[in-house]
């Protein structure tokens, strides 16, 4: 590649119009993405319904990747081009900003000053040195840094504002990189815990898990316990917070952290975030031998709900050939508070169907501590607890993205509200009076700066007219 081709490519990537075109394409694609159903945002059954109803469109859109538009090659390619273009632009912006930042003294002659949008000629009877000193005073009291060179003055303020634009673009790159870094190393999954149950943070203990390519099975394997579940939690101020689970996290048997998870209140530990999710009831069913010894038993998380909102589950008992379905509900609304005598008693009711090798052997209702004879054994309903799924996320990019958002906000403040302003003056002594050529300009909002400049000139005028030399 010869140097001319390199320069042309560089000029193309640096082009301000290219950035606008790319952003415009991103806007168009985003609008398309909000109109075409996106697989990543819909439940599979909803997506499939759309697909069945619009088979022809689905084939076309799936073919060009528009049903996963925001992770499609086209969209990511445009983003990549914008990313590269931004890098090229930053190089130019940064060198220009640093040059302007470091050039502290830009003394100008009256010819230059006269060309500025804001310029004034003042006359005073004060001597040149005294006039310079008075102007210096006024400028300093207005927040300017003032420099002198013989009969010329250069003053500036908010000079760091020049860094705003490069910082803004660097922040955009930073946010993109942080989100890419976060997503490739991200892990998210659902972990189901029954009250009192302890599970290790390990791949096989997640009901559903999605690991980014760079996560590398890097599970921390600390222990998580659901100490208590509250279907209608109220925080310390008495504010209702909805369902909540009190989690404790321990390592090597030592409790490291305890926290209550509810909507907008997470538990964070070692880069992992625990969010509340669905919950339900888990009855304890125990199969007893005829002599009363335990044959088998466990809490069965009734995780499906029927049309009446009652929790249902299917279960089997080891290799006995016994299997069944249950439906459980409480005779009162689920509550964390103690039931008082005046309220409906909160009693769990279990509807149970049991099959032995496909043959129905029991169909009835059970209450707590009831037992029923199943073949040569007894099945007892001895306890009930809550279960809850926790959505567990590990995304190391999140804090970086937040930092990027904070910095981008700061950079916008720098760009638009820390506007560099410069004042130039040349002071010439003529016969019995001193002539001052004064001019000022702001990097942005130049015509709005006029008001500030006029007030500055008035202050200078006032100072020059006070007293005699």
């Amino acid at each position: 590649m010869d140097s001319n081709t390199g320069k042309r490519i560089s000029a193309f990537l640096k082009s301000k119009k290219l950035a606008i075109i790319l952003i415009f394409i991103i806007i168009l694609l985003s609008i398309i993405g909000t109109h075409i159903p996106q697989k990543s945002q819909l439940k599979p059954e909803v997506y499939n319904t759309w697909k069945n109803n619009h088979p022809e469109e689905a084939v076309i859109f799936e073919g060009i990747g528009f049903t996963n538009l925001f992770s499609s090659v086209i969209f990511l390619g445009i983003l990549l081009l914008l990313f590269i273009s931004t890098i090229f632009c930053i190089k130019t912006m940064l060198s220009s900003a640093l040059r302007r930042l470091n050039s502290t003294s830009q003394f100008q002659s009256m010819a230059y000053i006269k060309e500025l949008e804001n310029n004034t000629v003042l006359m005073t009877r004060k001597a040149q040195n005294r006039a310079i000193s008075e102007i210096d005073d006024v400028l300093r009291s207005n927040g300017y840094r003032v420099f002198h060179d013989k009969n010329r003055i250069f003053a500036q303020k908010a000079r760091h504002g020049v860094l705003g634009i490069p910082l803004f673009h660097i922040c955009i790159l930073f946010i993109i990189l942080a989100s890419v870094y976060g997503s490739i190393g991200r892990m998210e999954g659902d972990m189901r815990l029954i009250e009192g149950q302890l599970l290790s943070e390990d791949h096989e203990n997640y009901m559903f898990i999605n690991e980014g390519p760079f996560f590398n099975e890097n599970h921390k394997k600390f222990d998580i316990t659901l100490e208590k579940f509250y279907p209608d939690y109220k925080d310390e101020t008495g504010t209702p917070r909805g369902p909540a689970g009190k989690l404790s996290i321990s390592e090597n048997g030592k409790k490291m952290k305890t926290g209550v998870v509810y909507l907008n209140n997470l538990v964070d530990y070692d880069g992992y975030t625990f969010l509340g999710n669905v919950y339900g009831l888990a009855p304890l069913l125990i199969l007893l031998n005829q002599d009363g010894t335990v044959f088998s038993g466990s809490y069965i998380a009734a995780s499906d709900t029927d049309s009446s909102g009652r929790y249902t589950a299917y279960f089997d008992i080891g290799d006995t050939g016994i299997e069944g379905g249950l439906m459980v509900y409480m005779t009162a609304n689920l509550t964390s508070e103690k039931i008082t005598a005046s309220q409906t008693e909160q009693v769990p009711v279990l509807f149970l169907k049991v099959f032995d090798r496909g043959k129905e052997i029991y169909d009835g209702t059970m209450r707590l501590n009831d037992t029923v004879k199943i073949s040569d054994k007894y099945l007892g309903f001895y306890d009930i607890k809550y279960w809850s799924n926790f959505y567990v996320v590990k995304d190391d990019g999140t804090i970086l993205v937040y930092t990027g958002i904070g910095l981008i906000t700061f950079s916008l403040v720098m760009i638009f509200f820390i506007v560099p302003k410069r004042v130039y003056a040349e002071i010439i002594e003529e016969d019995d009076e001193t002539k001052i050529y004064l001019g000022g300009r702001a990097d942005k909002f130049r015509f709005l700066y006029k008001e500030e400049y006029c007030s500055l000139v008035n202050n200078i005028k006032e100072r020059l007219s006070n007293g005699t030399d």
Partner: protein
Amino acid sequence: MAQIDWILYLTAATFYAISSVIYIYCLVFKKEKKLNFAINSALLGLLFHSVSVALRWITAEHGPYISMYEVLSSYAWVSVALFLLAQQKYEKIKIAGFIAMPVAFLIMGIGSTYSRDIQLIPASLRSYWLIAHVGFAKLAFGSILVAVGIAALYILKERHSNRSGTDENSFYDRLPELKVMDDLMYRFVASGLLFLTIMIGAGAIWANQTWGRYWGWDPTETWSLITWFTYGICLHLRMNVGWSGKRIAWLIIFSIFVLAFSLFGIGYVYSGLHTSYLTS
């Protein structure tokens, strides 16, 4: 109390309507001296409106961000308040109220068609980030609405100057210079972009706390990004490509439709995580 806040709301809307009529009258018939009546009407309206919003806040025990009635009422409140502050600082642009006040009145009118029943705040919305998120959305809308008012004035003044030259005593020539108006709309759009950025940032943090991800390409999120890009392009064109004056003024006027759709229209077109909050 609910009835009182509604009466105050209607009173405020009436004053906004009066203010709008006077503004339009002043613009059409070039009666600059009558502008004070328009401003005073707007101020009176804002006073009643403030009490209405405050009473509603106390009664509902949450800020104005749950039902559409509250949301639209607070958007109108912020827009009027920001406009009155802006015209206080830049006195020459007070006629820009001919855009700001009718829009505020229109928002109040649409708001009045929604249910005024007080809705309990869902647990998912109990977050300080939500307050920052919706608060900055309202500030962004208010800033950009003021910019649109100035942009419209810019176009009218420029058209007048091209047609009849300058005359110091004419209505349009007592407006700020075109270059100053150009700077003013630039400044208000810049403020709007800053507020939009904070709105999106606060929304991202809130989404992460509620759903475990800061960005999910939900239609509302996507449209907020589209809006941010739109104003980003607008400022980029102004700062780096040399667009200014009439072209930027038209772009600002066009862009508010994108913003308005993003803030108010999404819920009626798309279904998504946000939409149940945006239509009731």
